[in-house]
């Protein structure tokens, strides 16, 4: 883990309200694991004050790591105006990533919206033959072309709320129909997206006995496990009542979370 000024190499729009940024950092790009994140200061200012967390969406040989982000508020809007060559203060890589699956078994990567970011990084570590990538969006114009992030996935299945691309409906529908079709085949699920979607996926997978890892989101101040901002309730009756998403996660086995509290 390191805190440093990283140079913005590029910062480009890749879909409606969605940007891909490349930043140069040897330490982060060489050390990052899929599912880990960075805390990024969008500008030298106290308004906005706090760093913003972003999943690492990929790394390149030339010491560049990628983040894929969606405009949701002030911080991300400021970020989208940052020019090439600007240096931004970045802390990372932070948190625990996904368990990289061993080859030979199907891995279902299920993304909701911008939750696709850490899954793009994870996908690179999985044999294409084992990989099924399901991605849900609001509408066609939000769909991210994975090739813009340097990824080619043969089996990619899209759902959009309005039916402008792929299945009309939820990405969880895709999971459910996959399960109906696949019969007893063993598979693992890796998911990231809105909490309500993850809750649904957790219910489905816990029910079916499939292994499932989810990457969670929470309001964060430090990203280091120090401030206890990023609490999420654990399903265990004993020990820790709350996990801290920044340090105990952001990736958790779905069954370890108390989904009722969400």
């Amino acid at each position, binding site marked *: 883990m390191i805190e440093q000024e990283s140079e913005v190499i590029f910062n480009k729009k890749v879909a409606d309200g969605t940007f891909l940024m490349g930043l140069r950092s040897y330490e982060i790009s060489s050390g990052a694991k899929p599912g880990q994140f960075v805390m990024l200061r969008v500008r030298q200012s106290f308004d906005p004050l706090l760093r913003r967390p972003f999943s690492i969406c990929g790394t390149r040989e030339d010491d560049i790591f990628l983040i894929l982000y969606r405009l949701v508020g002030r911080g991300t809007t400021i970020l989208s105006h940052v020019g090439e060559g600007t240096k931004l203060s970045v802390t990372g890589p932070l948190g625990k990533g996904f368990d990289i699956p061993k080859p030979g078994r199907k891995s279902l990567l299920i993304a909701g919206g911008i939750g696709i970011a850490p899954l793009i990084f994870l996908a690179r570590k999985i044999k294409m033959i084992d990989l099924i990538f399901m991605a849900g969006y609001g509408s066609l114009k939000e769909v991210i072309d994975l090739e813009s992030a340097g990824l080619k996935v043969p089996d990619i299945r899209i759902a959009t709320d309005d039916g402008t691309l792929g299945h009309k409906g939820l990405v969880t529908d895709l999971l459910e129909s996959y399960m109906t079709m696949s019969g007893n085949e063993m598979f693992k699920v890796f998911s990231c997206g809105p909490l309500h979607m993850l809750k649904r996926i957790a219910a489905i997978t816990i029910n079916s006995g499939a292994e499932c890892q989810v990457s969670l989101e929470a309001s964060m101040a430090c990203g280091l496990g*120090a401030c206890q901002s990023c609490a999420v309730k654990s399903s265990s009756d004993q020990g820790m009542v709350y996990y801290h998403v920044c340090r105990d996660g952001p990736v958790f086995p779905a069954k370890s979370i108390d989904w009722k509290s969400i």
Partner: protein
Amino acid sequence: MTSINSDLSVKIGTLELKNPVLTASGTFGYGSEFSSLIDINKLGGIVVKGISLRPRAGNPPPRIVETHCGMLNAIGLANIGLENFLKEKLPWLQSLSTAVIVNIYGHSIEEYAAVAAGLKGVEGVSAIEINISCPNVECGGMVFGTDPKTSARVTEAVLKESDKPVIVKLSPNVTDIRAIAISVEKAGAYAISLINTLTGMAIDVEKRVPKLANITGGLSGPAIRPVALYMVYQVVKAVKIPVIGIGGIMNYWDALEFLIAGARAIQVGTANFVEPDVSLDIIEGLKRFCMDREIISIDDIIGTLNEKVDPGGQGTRTN
């Protein structure tokens, strides 16, 4: 170039600090969380997260929300409890060569006293800081630190059980901070630190719900610095014991405001989230400031506020 090597060390009663920069409770965990990013031993000291007798889970999320130049937190004093602290966190803290101050709190006077008792004789704890901004269950939820009498009673109860310097940390949510300060001084406090957070709130307009599950939270960060500085200024004048300044300190310049007002040390809170190495930058900045001006000791800055303002000084058109 000057060859002077300015001395940054300060004394808070019997407690000697290598420099006046501490990290504030709740913003620096148990110290170890920051140890891979900065050299903790360069700090004047650290104040660990508030410890209660038993572990506390804290409030449901969301626990924080950003505000303009500030943040609200409603962590709910989540902590691992005294026993786990001594077992799991203390050994590492004992290996440090900087001051370790343990922030404590309770929901009753007895609980405060019990935590202090549990720290008695413990090596490697340089001082205790009492957080009296805790809801006082015996008085119907009002906060201990908003009443001079209960503030004094908590202080006395902790002092009775403690063999360490006891710092009392004041809540700013009061009409007259001096009354509380004087009261805890009389009760025997070694030092006073202030301010804790201002109570605040934020609402999610789209959903028409509070942004924090706890509804209210504590405001910290640069937004509150003017309020903090004023309270420190008032308390410095009201008491003889040392005062530690806290609130919105983001850089060495801000730290100097508090030192000039008379604080003998300062604590850095929210700024740790913005720049994890900010405390080291502050120490560097203070050193440079003193050296550039040939100030031999940081003591020569503390409490040097001159209250007469030069009205001609407001212009920026220097010749």
